[in-house]
């Protein structure tokens, strides 16, 4: 087996163990709570009989490990149960709300990589100079506020005082929503050939995605900088400098490459944080994602929906981390070339 495949198998198997752990954890938390979820779901006017019936249907009177057994059996069939809040299968609900959230997080991730890493490179190249200090303060400010604070401040500045961007929503109300194919509005409108919808959606996503990305941008810039500053002390950089290579080429090619790997690891972790923080940004911009659903089901103690939402978010996070690990394995010559030698 090539090293990359071996890594993939190892990471996948560990992820499965972790995901089982996550399901047990969230399942336990969800079932030991005070209050009767069946009673909450049916409301105060339901009869005791109706409540008993629902309790029976949800297996709430069985011991918790048996309840977990039922859950695993249904999960194997791709069934996460019915949401007590929307009365629809949890999988349907998640399939409806997840794409909007993922779209937001992916665009924010692009901002994070596209702005954070170049800022870090610039900061390291001009280390100790004014440009470096300015970038460092900006990135520290980015890390220093929860994304809802940035969301509110950006909205105030660029939607109210300078009306450059729309205040809320995913697409302009006057446009017909493009046919739902993937659920990702940007992709769907392109597939539809509807460019007006595409630009409207793009216009709507920039501000929330940027608010979500700000702390990630700061993190990526800080990390890239600190790794590169370390690399700058290495003899091979001195050699490149004494050859008279341009400073820009040294920064972008020789000093940056080794620091790409640790930066990517952190970017994977930041992606997870953004999946959580998307809840905050979505609340500010009335974004029709998983957030409103998530907060509603949590407030209503909707067991199936809570377990399902947390599981899906965790699984997404694990998948992103596996992708990052594979990317690192591919970029890292020690792993990539070992594969070539082995086959």
């Amino acid at each position, binding site marked *: 087996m090539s090293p990359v495949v071996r890594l993939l198998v190892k990471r996948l198997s560990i992820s499965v163990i972790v995901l089982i752990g996550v399901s047990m954890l969230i399942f336990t938390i969800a079932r030991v709570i005070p209050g009767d979820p069946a009673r909450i779901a049916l409301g105060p006017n339901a009869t005791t009989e109706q409540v008993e019936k629902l309790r029976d249907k949800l297996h709430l009177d069985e011991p918790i490990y048996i309840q977990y057994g039922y859950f695993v059996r249904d999960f194997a069939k791709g069934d996460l149960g019915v949401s007590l809040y929307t009365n629809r299968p949890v999988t349907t609900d998640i399939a409806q709300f997840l794409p909007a959230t993922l779209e937001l997080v992916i665009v924010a991730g692009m901002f994070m990589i596209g702005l954070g890493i170049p800022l870090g490179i610039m900061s390291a190249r001009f280390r100790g100079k004014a440009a470096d200090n300015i970038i460092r303060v900006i990135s520290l400010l980015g890390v*220093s506020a929860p994304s809802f604070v940035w969301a509110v401040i950006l909205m105030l500045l660029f939607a109210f005082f300078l009306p450059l961007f729309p205040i809320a929503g995913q697409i302009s109300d006057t446009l017909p929503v493009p046919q739902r194919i993937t659920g990702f509005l940007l992709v769907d409108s392109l597939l539809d050939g509807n460019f007006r919808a595409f630009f409207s959606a793009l216009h709507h996503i920039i501000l929330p995605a940027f608010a979500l990305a700000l702390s990630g941008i700061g993190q990526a810039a800080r990390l890239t900088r600190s790794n590169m500053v370390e690399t700058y002390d290495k003899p091979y950089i001195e050699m490149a400098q004494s050859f008279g290579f341009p400073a820009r080429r040294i920064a972008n090619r020789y000093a940056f490459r080794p620091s790409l790997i640790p930066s990517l690891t952190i970017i994977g972790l930041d992606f997870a944080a953004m999946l959580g923080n998307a809840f*905050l940004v979505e609340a500010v911009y009335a974004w029709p994602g998983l957030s409103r659903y998530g907060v509603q089901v*949590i407030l209503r103690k909707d067991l199936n929906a809570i377990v399902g939402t947390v599981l899906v*978010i965790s699984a997404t996070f694990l998948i992103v981390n596996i992708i990052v690990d594979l990317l690192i394995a591919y970029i890292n010559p020690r792993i990539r070339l070992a594969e070539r030698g082995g086959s």
Partner: protein
Amino acid sequence: MRRIFYILLSNPLSVIGLVLVGTVVFSAVFADFIAPFPSHRGAVVDFSNFNQPPHWPNIFGTDLVGRDVFSRILYAYRISLILGVVVLAIAVPIGVTVGLAAGYLGGWTEFCLMRLTDVFLSIPPLVLAMSVMGLLEPTLTNGMLAVTTMWWPWYARLVYNVTRSEAQEGYVLAAEIIGASRLHVMFREILPNCVPSIVTKMTLDLGFVILIASSLSFLGLGVQAPTPDLGSMVAEGGNYLPDSWWLTVFPSLAILIAVFGFNLLGDAFRQVLGSDQ
């Protein structure tokens, strides 16, 4: 100690951090004396003076029931700091013990403890805290519990990494050879060498606990009214943008200033303690 202070004071950014953190802590501790309207921390109503823009004596304006925003921010700082200190006081010992045990004992202990840590780390922190908080009743105690459950794994992982490299050092071997118990090696030999990393992280984390706690209450899953909280103040004011901008802008800046201060100070500690090693 003097050397540490000298290095701290020689960097302007660290001084700014020290001043910001000092101001935040001072205003939280002495809120009773500084706040112009101490009673406004609770459920006070003053409809004759509601929703006023900043003016004297309400320098940050008044909220929708006429309470002084500046006074409420000071008391919100107090709640946030108490929450941060309590969370770290519980989460750090748990995380440190798990990390030490996993890193030093190895084998099945390591496998089980670190997989458990992975489980907690693979739920986005905010989502984990939200679930805990939503399923329990939203109170200050439960808020601390919710944030603690998501916080200890980070210390477990940090200490685990340091322990793994320290366990290879000669002094650990020497202690083992003279027959020191495992507990002695873990807590008396290895732990002191983890302290610089732990202290640095704790300083940074005081800021981040404030950040997470305000995020929870922003979503309505945190400290409940009438207790003042920066997150819920922003959430409440967000409905009245842009006209009543002071309701959101000042609490937002308050969060930013506090977390920024702790970050600057944490960075300074990292430089000082890093160069000491």
